[in-house]
């Protein structure tokens, strides 16, 4: 009888420890959602107060299974604001292009990419370039700024972008 009780106690303690461990894993994995930090990008801080721009900052957006990037999304609410944004980020205005070319640029699924080199560091004997990447759409009047991304992060974005083309 005592032996049977010991077995029951063993499995009870095991279940309690398992539940605690799973709870700890949940808190660790969802730490930023449970305890959100105030960290935002400079670009987000600059545009978040504007009524005519929807600004969002996403921390650690998952591009694929291994790569995460910090992204700021800016969405202009009208054409004038969009033109202003283009000017701020040194992007050519849609009116700078010939009329025939504008149609392809304003197609719903057309996004363009602009890469701004920032700096480079040496990691394990090779140069690791850091850059800000802006992907923007004239049609949606929105731009995604990927902050300070490394070579591997940039490759992951390009691979994701070219997957659709190869399919």
């Amino acid at each position, binding site marked *: 009888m005592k*032996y049977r009780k010991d*077995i029951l106690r*063993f*499995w009870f303690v*095991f279940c309690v*420890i*398992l539940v605690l*461990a*799973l709870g700890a*894993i*949940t808190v660790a*994995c*969802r730490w*930023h*959602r449970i305890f*959100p*930090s105030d960290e*935002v990008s400079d670009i*987000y801080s600059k*545009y*978040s*107060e*504007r009524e005519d*721009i*929807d*600004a*969002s*900052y*996403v*921390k*650690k*957006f*998952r*591009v694929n*299974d291994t790569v*995460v990037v910090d*992204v700021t*999304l800016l*969405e202009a609410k009208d054409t004038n604001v969009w033109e202003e944004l283009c000017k701020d980020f040194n992007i050519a205005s849609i009116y700078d292009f010939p009329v025939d070319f504008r149609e392809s640029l304003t197609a719903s*699924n*057309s*996004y*363009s*990419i602009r890469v701004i080199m920032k700096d480079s560091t040496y990691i394990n004997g090779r140069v690791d370039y850091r850059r800000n990447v802006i*992907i*923007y*759409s004239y049609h*949606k009047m*929105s*731009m*995604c700024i990927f902050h300070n991304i490394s070579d591997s992060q940039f490759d992951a*974005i*390009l691979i*994701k*972008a070219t*997957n*659709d083309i190869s399919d």
Partner: protein
Amino acid sequence: MNHRQPPSPTKLQPITPEAMVHISDLVERDNIDLPQRCARYRRRASIRRTALAVCFFFGCCISYTSIISAPLYDQITTSSDAGNQHICEAIRLSIENVS
């Protein structure tokens, strides 16, 4: 014909004196220490149970971690009224439609 009835499976049969002698002989001959054997059996069962529990524990933790540790994002700070779903969708579209 006087047929002998088989013993009822639910009813324990008394141990006959002959059987007792036989068991005593066996224990003496094989030097069986019943309490020790019982303790050894329980110790082995305990080791097997602990090993099973440890494997199950780590299996659960690893599976759960692989399920839970791949969120689409860590945190979203926004000034717009659009939901998080819209923001993620906009970013995903921008990545997938670069031309």
